[in-house]
């Protein structure tokens, strides 16, 4: 269970998040929707400890982590796949995976973790020695997801996993995410601009607009058009 209570994020005078409260359940996908600049990334970044929190609390299974530095949160089993193809571009695929595995709590030995990654995404096995910067966009996203999941995290934050990818790759990526969530019992939070896609795989969804929560509900309801039938027209 991941909970956020009245969370505020401010970059200097600019308020990115103005008091957001939400919860995400273990073994389920929770979607955070909103247009560009709505505060989705700020929310995820505050949870993983790299955005300045100006107020509110963040709880992992009831434990307040608001004051913990980012590496300590990672050690508690929190993983964050950031937006924008964040990889160590000059390191090889294998080295990226090893780094992602090495620091903090890990549930499986490296060999086994590597084998699982290569089974899921065989192309990453074939390109193990290639610098990550030279992979295609889809392969980079696969590597980012593999890095985020290689330690077997208990909480997984995914920021715009579909951004800039071809539809066929997006389908593959989302198939992995749903499958992984179901099997690992991980608490997953996905920030997405593509609302329909995220609503289809998630159980619950929150809609952000200009740093505030404007709508929340079960994904099925929102997919059917929202309580007032106005989700897309009003907020996205």
């Amino acid at each position: 269970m991941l909970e956020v209570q009245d969370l505020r994020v401010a970059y200097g005078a600019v308020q990115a998040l103005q008091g957001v409260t939400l919860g995400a359940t273990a073994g389920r996908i929770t979607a955070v929707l909103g247009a560009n600049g709505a505060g989705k990334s700020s929310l995820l970044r505050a949870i993983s400890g790299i955005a300045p929190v100006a107020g509110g609390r963040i709880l992992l299974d009831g434990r307040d982590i608001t004051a913990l530095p980012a590496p300590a949160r990672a050690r508690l089993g929190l993983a964050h796949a950031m937006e924008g193809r964040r990889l160590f571009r000059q390191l090889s695929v294998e080295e990226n995976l090893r780094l992602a595995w090495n620091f903090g709590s890990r549930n499986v030995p490296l060999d086994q973790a590597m084998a699982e990654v290569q089974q899921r995404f065989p192309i990453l096995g074939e390109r193990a020695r290639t610098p990550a910067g030279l992979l295609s966009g889809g392969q980079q996203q696969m590597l980012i997801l593999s890095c985020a999941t290689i330690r077997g995290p208990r909480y997984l934050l995914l920021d715009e996993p579909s951004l800039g990818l071809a539809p066929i790759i997006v389908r593959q990526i989302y198939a992995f995410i749903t499958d992984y969530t179901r099997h690992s019992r991980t608490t997953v939070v996905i920030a997405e601009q593509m609302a329909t896609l995220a609503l289809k795989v998630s159980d619950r969804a929150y809609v952000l607009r200009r740093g505030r929560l404007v709508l929340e509900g079960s994904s099925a309801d929102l997919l059917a058009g929202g309580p007032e039938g106005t989700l897309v027209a009003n907020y996205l």
Partner: protein
Amino acid sequence: MDDFFFSLVLAGISVGSVYALIALGLNLTFWTTRTLNFGQGSLMMLCAVLTVFLSSQGLAMMLAVIGSLLVVAALGMFVERFAIRPALAAGGGSMGWVVSTLGFGIVLQGVAAKYFGSQAMAFPEVLFTAQDYVTVFGQHVSLQYLVVLALSVSLILLLELFVRKTVWGQAVHAVSHDPELALVQGIPVRLIVLGSFIASSLLAGVAGILSAQIGGTVDPAFGFDLVLLGFVAGVLGGMGTSLGALAGGLAVGLISKLVGGYISTAAEHAIAFALLMAMLALRPQGLLGRPEVSKA
């Protein structure tokens, strides 16, 4: 082979390997924080001066060296905590660290001058005496040149191996390229930054002892020129690469000694800096620097 030329080359390689060590020390903090400790020269000086002082108090030479290195390592931590971290926390690409590290160096130099006097003091013979030599290709080669070269090359190779082959070395790379990503992956970024400043100060200390050993004396102003030349070596070889630091250091050492021998000693440094400017114009990433790997 011409004796004069040969001796210049040897002297060049020897001072060049010290420049390489200095460049390597600058590299380390540049990797982790994109900052340079301009107080590096004063740390070199202090390490050499303290070694002289401690051994004059009757401490065994080896203990004097180790004690001085410990002091310098502690000062490296001090620099990170009080000169670098606040400046970087200010954000917005603050250049405050240039002033704060330079200021640290100047204060250290002043303190050393106050307590140890500003006169040059003789540096004891730690590793070898100036009279020791071996014969290479029928030439007498002073042993100190070879020891300095061997020590520098092995330190550089060790560091290169560490960075390329160990996961902690790759974590240093990670902090250098994307500190935020390193943080969310659980890499202890703070610890690595602190470690880089300690290691960098230790390298400065070793370089200080070696160059005091080659020159035979040390004084509080010693170190300032050396750091500038180490900086030239680093930029020449490509800031951020260890082998580049070695190549750059040797190039600067050789060129300045050859210029000094055949043209004029007054031109030594001028030529080194002319070289730096030419390098920046022609190949900004340095001799062995790698441009960013990326697709599209």
